[in-house]
């Protein structure tokens, strides 16, 4: 997308308002309900999730769809909070850790889509890729059976719950999940996961 550089302001086509109006128009054209990019916290997750549910309820979306979209949103956002390689940590009276990433929710061709993206370390790519490829190839019944199996497994210490989280995401999806990795530098990749409901 091309966004014109902001001009000196005032009512002119290259001004501040025109610049951001164009930016918003590009988002709107892609059917985006909201898109968050930056440092994510549990508080932001709650507020965005609550607004998302209200928006869908006001538009008379059926309950099952609202629940699926909300669930995928929560799992995706919590994966960013847990696994993003781009974090800031410190002590603000209590320990605070913020994780950077992006969550975008919108509609296209009558379906909701949820995209999450974050930076991950190269060493974590093969394991994640293998898990996602496996889920991508499974049909609905296989995913359900796999979910039930993992529900009964003892938690895997290193994954902090990721296995079941990714299965939950795949289970709520109406089409096979889509994902991609884009190399940033010698150590890091940009990871992206798209789910349609």
């Amino acid at each position: 997308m091309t966004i014109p550089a902001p001009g000196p302001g005032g009512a002119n086509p290259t001004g501040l308002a025109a610049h951001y109006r164009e930016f918003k128009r590009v988002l709107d054209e892609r059917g985006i309900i909201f898109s968050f990019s930056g440092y994510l916290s549990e508080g932001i997750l709650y507020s965005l999730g609550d607004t998302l549910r209200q928006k869908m309820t006001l538009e008379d979306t059926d309950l099952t769809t609202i629940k699926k979209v909300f669930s995928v949103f929560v799992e995706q956002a919590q994966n960013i909070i847990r696994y993003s390689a781009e974090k800031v940590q410190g002590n603000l009276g209590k320990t605070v850790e913020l994780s950077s990433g992006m969550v975008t929710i919108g509609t296209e061709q009558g379906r909701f889509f949820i995209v999450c993206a974050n930076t991950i370390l190269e060493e974590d790519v093969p394991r994640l890729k293998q898990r996602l490829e496996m889920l991508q190839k499974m049909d609905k019944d296989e995913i359900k059976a796999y979910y039930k199996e993992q529900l009964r497994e003892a938690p895997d210490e290193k994954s902090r719950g990721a296995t079941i989280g990714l299965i939950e995401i795949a289970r709520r999806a109406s089409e096979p999940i889509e994902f991609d990795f884009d190399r940033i530098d010698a150590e890091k990749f940009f990871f992206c996961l798209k789910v349609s409901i």
Partner: protein
Amino acid sequence: MDNLVIAATERSPEVNFDFEGGQLSLKGESYPEDASSVFGPIFAALEQYLVQAEGKTVTFDFNLIYFNSSSAKALMNMFQILDDAADRRGVKVEVNWRYAEDDETMQEFGEDFSEDLEHLTFNLVPTKG
């Protein structure tokens, strides 16, 4: 032992365990990033109660609207503990899994959870509105 009463928060359920009366309930939503912080105290109280509940009747009401995948794992673990108490300690456990009648997701979760439980009674209870 003392009852366990914890108010709901934005992302954790209301807990109301009346141990004396054998009436336990979890209600609301559960999607904390760290499920162990929410379920840790619940498990501790429940396990302490179950070791001394031999021959007693316990009714556990679940009235959950939404929970994330790590909470689902904790709930499965909880059902296994309850099933085990029913099996080995002769505790009569009755679970009421309540869900809105048009909520397919919560119905399916109830079915998934109940599948391998052999010693407790698991009721799927659809509710109106």
